[in-house]
């Protein structure tokens, strides 16, 4: 055992499927390196479980480098754990101390039903995107870029909004399970650019309507989503979405 390795108690949400009720189950892990990522620590636990003949813990993960947005885990009361601006795969065990108890829960929202253990169904986001999170693509040659000058500030704001990876931490964190930061980012990235103007109004109307239909809660401007967003999406986007939506309603 190298120095600095730690023993931890984990309390992890286990749930067979969407129909059966789940509960928190305690597990012990030993000799965890501080250099492991949180997901690697769960991998170690899963190997223990498999070797014992128990069922492993289901959790979402894909790229393990902070860009796919799959690793949804609510760790010790915060989306993606105690650090800001990162996903769970970017969280390292050095953020914890030897002897700590760590509670891991899935995203909690009626619109994100649990599939199994820590995995949730985020297809509500896909259905919102399908309602307008795209632009009309013209065929033929691209015109000269100098014909459509875009101010740097607008381009930057659009790019920052486009950094959203759809992980759902905003919904998971929000006390109202509101998806407004996600939808606002997806509306903003197009509303700010010339390419997004064709469907500008219908996009705002249809995406917000779909968001409401999916049963997400209402924004009360606590600002928690902005703090927990791994990509630093700003509340400015929600204000922009509100403007886009009511202006689209007036027209």
């Amino acid at each position, binding site marked *: 055992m190298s120095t600095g390795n730690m023993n931890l108690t984990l309390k992890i949400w286990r749930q067979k499927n969407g129909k059966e009720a789940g509960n928190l189950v305690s597990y012990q892990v030993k000799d965890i390196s501080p250099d492991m990522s949180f997901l690697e620590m769960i991998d170690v636990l899963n190997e223990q479980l498999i070797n014992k003949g128990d069922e492993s813990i289901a959790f979402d993960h894909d790229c393990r480098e902070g860009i796919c947005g799959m690793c949804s885990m609510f760790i010790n009361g915060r989306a993606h754990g105690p650090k800001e601006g990162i996903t769970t795969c970017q969280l390292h065990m050095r953020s914890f101390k030897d002897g700590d108890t760590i509670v891991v*829960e899935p995203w909690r*929202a009626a619109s994100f039903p649990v599939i199994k253990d820590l995995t949730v169904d985020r297809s509500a986001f896909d259905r919102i995107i399908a309602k307008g999170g795209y632009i009309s693509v013209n065929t033929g040659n691209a015109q000269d870029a100098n014909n459509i000058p875009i101010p740097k500030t607008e381009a930057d704001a659009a790019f920052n909004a486009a950094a959203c990876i759809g992980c759902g931490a905003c919904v998971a964190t929000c006390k*109202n399970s*509101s998806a407004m930061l996600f939808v606002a980012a997806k509306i903003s990235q197009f509303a700010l650019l010339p390419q997004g103007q064709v469907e500008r109004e219908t996009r705002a109307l249809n995406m917000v*309507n779909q968001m409401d239909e999916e049963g997400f809660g209402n924004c009360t401007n606590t600002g928690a989503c902005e*703090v927990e967003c791994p990509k630093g999406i700003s509340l400015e986007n929600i204000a922009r979405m509100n403007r886009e939506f*009511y202006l689209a309603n007036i027209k």
Partner: protein
Amino acid sequence: MANFLQSSIGKKVLMSITGLFLISFLVVHCFLNSFIFFNDGGVMFNEGAEFMAHNPIIRTMEIVLFIGIILHIVQALILTLQNQKARPIKYAVQNGAANSKWYSRSMGLLGTLILMFLIIHLKHFWYVSRLTDEITSGEETLFGEMIEVFENPMIVLLYVLAMFSLGYHLLHGFQSAFQSLGLNHKKYSPLIAAIGFWFSIIVPFIFAMMPISIYFGLIK
């Protein structure tokens, strides 16, 4: 329009417009009540109250004000019920303090406290001045009524605590209203936040000083 008001953003917009309207009422109410600080035995204050009681515009605004309060409360109830439905299974551990202010998460609780105070407050003054003939008959003045009500230390304490609820409710509500209306700007938002901060301290403070100074006999 009906579709707009049923949408999540439409409800937020209605919440902020009614909220800002109630804030504008606070300004008028606070300004007129501050006439007691002239400490002239309530002469100025009673004149102001008399004007408010007979001005047709003010009388109409009183009805609009009640509608505003009811809309604000009904919307809050609808929004809160929807928000609770959006998360049927709660977290075992949720560290809200890590990412938001307690008062921004407690607007419903603070609002309920303010409503309870409002009912008591209306009973003390609005009921007496509008629904009984105590004041119109000249038997009592509104200022005299104030002096009488604030003789009771428990009522003074209740009023002061209610002003804390109001202060925290405004501290989040003031700037939140502008965000809901889509006003979030690098230049102007810090200004709105600063105005909101000082408004949330100064207005409840002036209100709280009224029962306190009457109780301690500073205003007679």
